């Protein structure tokens, strides 16, 4: 690495005018991941928490432990497990597909499926989100449901008109935290794909790491990192802006 030299905004212009051919590619890949993972993660976690919260369910704490277990597995180790599950010739997933007479996939080794595969893997680690949703669901006052039953509301109407509105602050919280986390996906890219194939999983954080520590371009990488910060800031600001129209706070009634 060389001694630093002041070059003004050069690092930024190099990104935006396309001299660095990976910048827009990395943005696209990362957005694709975030747009897939955040909604799928929220829906999946919400459904699990909702089912788990039903009154007749026995063994709630066992289920909760099972759903949380993957979260504590170190990212390096979970990446190892999932490369193995995704293995095109010998992996468990392709064996399932074969057993069901479906066409097998190349998972991490094809440009089309690499990002969805990593999204699938991320659903495995949704335990914290599930537990936060569950805690929220337990906090919805029963009196509301009872009043709705008196008024003759069915299960669907209770869900749409009580559960969902009462849960919007927690959905909002998980949306923000989930998006911030998703923008910073790193270990999976480093261990499983090294950004490949053909840069189809060049996630933004891995791109920063690669520029800084593999190519020694510290200044350039810092510029890339600042843009990530701006993006996260803007996305969070947009969510906060829209939240006024859909997030319902009891204290404001």
């Amino acid at each position: 690495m060389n001694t630093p030299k002041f070059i003004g905004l050069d690092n930024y212009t190099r990104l935006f005018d396309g001299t660095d051919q990976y910048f827009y590619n990395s943005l696209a890949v990362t957005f694709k991941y975030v747009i897939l993972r955040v909604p799928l993660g929220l829906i999946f976690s919400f459904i699990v928490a909702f089912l788990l919260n039903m009154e007749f369910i026995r063994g709630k704490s066992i289920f909760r432990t099972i759903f949380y277990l993957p979260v504590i597995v170190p990212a390096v180790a979970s990446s190892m497990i999932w490369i193995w599950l995704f293995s095109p010739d010998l992996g468990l997933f392709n064996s399932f597909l074969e057993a069901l007479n479906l066409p097998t996939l190349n998972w991490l080794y094809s440009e089309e499926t690499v990002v969805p595969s990593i999204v699938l893997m991320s659903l495995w680690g949704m335990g914290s989100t599930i537990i936060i949703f569950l805690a929220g669901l337990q906090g919805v006052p029963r009196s509301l449901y009872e009043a709705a039953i008196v008024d003759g509301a069915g299960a669907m109407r209770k869900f749409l008109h009580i559960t969902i509105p009462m849960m919007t602050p927690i959905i909002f919280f998980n949306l923000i935290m989930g998006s911030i986390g998703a923008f910073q996906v790193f270990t999976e890219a480093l261990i499983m794909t090294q950004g490949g194939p053909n840069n189809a999983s060049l996630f933004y954080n891995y791109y920063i790491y690669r520029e800084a520590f593999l190519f020694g371009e510290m200044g350039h990488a810092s510029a890339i990192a600042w843009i990530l910060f701006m993006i996260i800031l803007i996305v969070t600001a947009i969510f906060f802006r829209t939240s006024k129209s859909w997030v319902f706070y009891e204290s404001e009634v």
Partner: protein
Amino acid sequence: MLRSRRISQITVYFFLLIGAAFCLLPLFWLIRSSLMTSIQIFEMPPKWIPAPFQFQNYVEALTSIDFFRFFRNTLTITISCLAGALISSSLGAYSYARLSWPGRNIFFSLLLASMMLPSAVTLIPTFIGWRLVDLINTYFPLIMPVWFGSAFDIFLLRQFYSSIPKDLDEAAYVDGAGPWTIFYRIIIPLSKPALIVIGLFSFMNSWNDFMGPLVYLNEESKFTMALGLQMFQSLHSAQWHLLMAASTFVIMPVIIVFFIGQRYFIEGITLTGMKG
């Protein structure tokens, strides 16, 4: 009516069990593969239960590179971070919650603002800083920051301390106690659950940390388990049975700690909304 309720209950259980299977299957597959011979693992269609159980894989994996050394290294870092997290964050939080000093609110806002910065942004300047003081390839960059307090822990503890009645402090002040005495006689004993939560998350974070050791450590003898596992992968890329045995070894300590501290974990996540 009763019958349709039965059916819907069974449906709910069915979906929950599918979800649980999705969570457990990868872990089962890990352990199952770690106990197979290299021949058995390549059999198609795959077998669910290894026959015979090949415990030899663990011996082979753990002796091919010095995993026990990585274990000791990780333990050193984890314990140093744990001590730092508990001591510095609880002191800092006490100061923000109970003591009054000029500029306290400004510093507290700065502390909260520092949580907003993604680690990718601070990584490069921090790295350059540690290089200037020539401490790359030591444990200092991994341990020292925690000893200066983590913003999140301080915030969480401050909220917790604020819920402890001030009357207790005041009564102690009347009896002639100073702030230090109040800190370790009143505040610490009353905030044990919060401290346990912070301790557990600190343990998990440093045990599972990958980016930090990856960037700062470059000598094999100093590697952590996570780094060791990555190195192991590059040496034995197609030897799945060994790779899975090594991964199991890396995962086991956190699983054990998780089951011991389980209750606090769930409380902690609900309390903080934090990602594990």
